[in-house]
């Protein structure tokens, strides 16, 4: 067993997991607290990536572009809440799904009209474009470390926000009993709009961080949103802690499956069959996990206490 390779793959898995967490945290907030199924959450991820890509070329600086693109994505989320989501809160989930699926198509087409179908490759500053040697033989692109670092700090910030601030208290209270909160004089509408905008910013941040690795492209959100739903279902809908742990687990399963499954299969079948079967099975593994969790704990691994 090559432990250096294993270590690197674990880091890669954690990095993927943290990106998933950024998207999932917003989705789980909106789903768990507003009780709103937002399929178009992935579109916010895409919008973040495209806005950030354009700003990178405008400013010539990726980090500055991220800082400016974050509030812009938040405003987009705020507007979507006002225009689309707010009218749907008292409808049932199927209506949410239909409306937000329509929203995906609208946003994808708008993106195609504004930015074209080509997608945008995002350049990184030189100090982020290199590699870092952690120890002998373990070299990792510096940008991937930045993703891990920012993912962890955002996670820490969110825990603090939800558990130890007045806003977080209101969010939890609003989720628990929204009539009571508004009777106490809290503007629940604005509160929900803020939560939605926060979710949009988190998803947008994930899009911004992935765009220098892949690129900003149409439909990128639709690919991640499926995995993200798996994350929040496994973690327990509405639970920030669940989203975090499930995202890391799923990131690790996906990455380690891709890296080592073919070798493991190779022990019991021909190399050709193993290299064909492994990617198919590793693609299924997260869904198998979801099925197992649903069978054993239908509420997810960490269901929130107040529901």
């Amino acid at each position, binding site marked *: 067993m*090559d432990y250096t390779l294993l270590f690197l793959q674990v880091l890669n898995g954690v990095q*993927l997991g943290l990106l998933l967490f950024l998207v999932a945290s917003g989705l789980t907030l909106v789903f768990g607290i507003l009780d709103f199924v937002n399929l178009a959450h992935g579109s916010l991820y895409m919008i973040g990536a495209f806005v950030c890509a354009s700003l990178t*070329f405008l400013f010539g600086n990726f980090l500055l572009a991220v800082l400016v693109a974050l509030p812009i994505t938040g405003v987009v989320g705020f507007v979507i809440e006002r225009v689309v989501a707010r009218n749907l809160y008292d409808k049932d989930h199927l209506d949410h799904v239909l409306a937000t699926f329509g929203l995906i198509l609208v946003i994808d087409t708008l993106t195609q009209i504004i930015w074209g179908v080509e997608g945008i490759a995002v350049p990184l500053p030189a100090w982020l*474009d290199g*590699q870092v040697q952690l120890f002998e033989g373990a*070299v990792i692109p510096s940008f991937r470390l930045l993703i891990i670092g920012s993912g962890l700090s955002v996670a820490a910030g969110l825990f603090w926000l939800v558990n130890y601030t007045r806003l977080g208290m209101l969010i939890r209270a609003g989720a628990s009993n929204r009539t009571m909160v508004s009777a106490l004089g809290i503007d629940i509408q604005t509160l929900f709009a803020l939560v939605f905008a926060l979710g949009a910013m988190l998803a947008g941040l994930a899009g911004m961080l992935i765009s*220098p690795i*892949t690129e900003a492209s149409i439909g990128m959100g639709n690919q991640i949103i499926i995995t993200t739903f798996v994350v929040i279902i496994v973690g327990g809908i509405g639970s920030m802690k669940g989203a975090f742990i499930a995202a890391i687990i799923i990131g690790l399963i996906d*990455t380690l499956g891709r890296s080592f499954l073919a070798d493991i299969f190779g022990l019991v079948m021909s190399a050709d069959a193993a290299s064909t079967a492994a990617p198919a099975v590793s*693609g299924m593994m997260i869904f198998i996990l979801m099925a197992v969790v649903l069978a054993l704990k239908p509420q997810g691994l960490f269901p929130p206490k107040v529901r």
Partner: protein
Amino acid sequence: MKKIVTAALAATMLTSIAQAAEVKIGFVTTLTTGGAVIGNDQKKAVDLAIKQMGGKMGDLDVNLIYGDDGFKPETGKQATDKLLKQDNVDFVAGYIWSNVLLASRKSVLDAGKFLISANAGPGPVAGKLCNENFFSTSWQNDQTPQAMGEVLNQKGVKSIYIIAPNYAAGKGMVAGVKSTFKGEVLGTDMTKWPTQLDFSAELAKAKASGAEGLFIFYPGKAGGAFMKQYQQAGLKDSLPLYTVFSVDALSLPKFQAAGFTDVLGSQFTQFWDPTLDNPQNNKFVADFRAAYGSYPSFYAAQAYDSMFLIKSAVEAVNGDLTDMDGMRAAMKSASFPSVRGEFTYGNNNMPIQNFYLREVVADADGNWTTKIVQTVFEAHQDSYAKDCPLK
């Protein structure tokens, strides 16, 4: 009232008779999703070809109908069926993706129409499933990586690691390079297609394998994503990259805008290059650049050729579209002007053609494009032709 209806019906019927003096061509490509980058380039080339023909093939007006495969085999088949049943086209051309072509080919051939692939060339279509009404203006999938395998031998590379997507074409590419490369293949990773765009795990494995070279096949936006991650991983010196169909005229302007200078000097094999010197190619590249301001991709070149192949068939039978044998013989002769220069068709109707080694360079104006370094194969025939019962 009844009279009006009758008159309207008669008028409709008359129009449809008047419309009979046209050749209907369906072109199935990817016009939505990220794959639309390629589809749009093909569409540009097809539109340019029809414009250059003055909208006519012989005496017939060209009626071109596009179908969108949405990057999915099932959608591509639906688009194909719609072209055949609703539009009743005479030719179906296009098909970027091997899996889409494999899903759609039967519909076209069962309907007794001509099927012309302007890109995809999976092994079965060239071998056991070959058909007299199927023609290609591209190549068989394995050929281009076979040429790359030969280049690796010539460069003295002893061992390689392979990363490719897990679908029909990806498997063909891997089989192709393995069939000619004489060194050792230290590992092969087949990734989920088309959703996987993060290759960190695979790159880490490739590096750990200690191979002397890395061979990849990632068409479209996945190619761009791979090139960037390869650069970010800093593998240029320790693990040189050899690609097929992963760097093209669609990704180069993006790389240039983002300053990915590592791409300059990278080499890959192909049947065509914008600098190939023949009258048809010079005209194509010049007109394409004048019309759209960018270099055409090889996808565009193949789509452009497909229209001239169809034109040669229609003209050979003087517009009698019922003369399938006449049109087939005309296409089989490969007498149309091709952007690749002169070539012939094999028994399986796949081109027997040259393959070149291309290198990414900046042109006189500083735009990133490619030039030909050497000819790798001359008049190369695919290895599936022997499985094809056609003569």
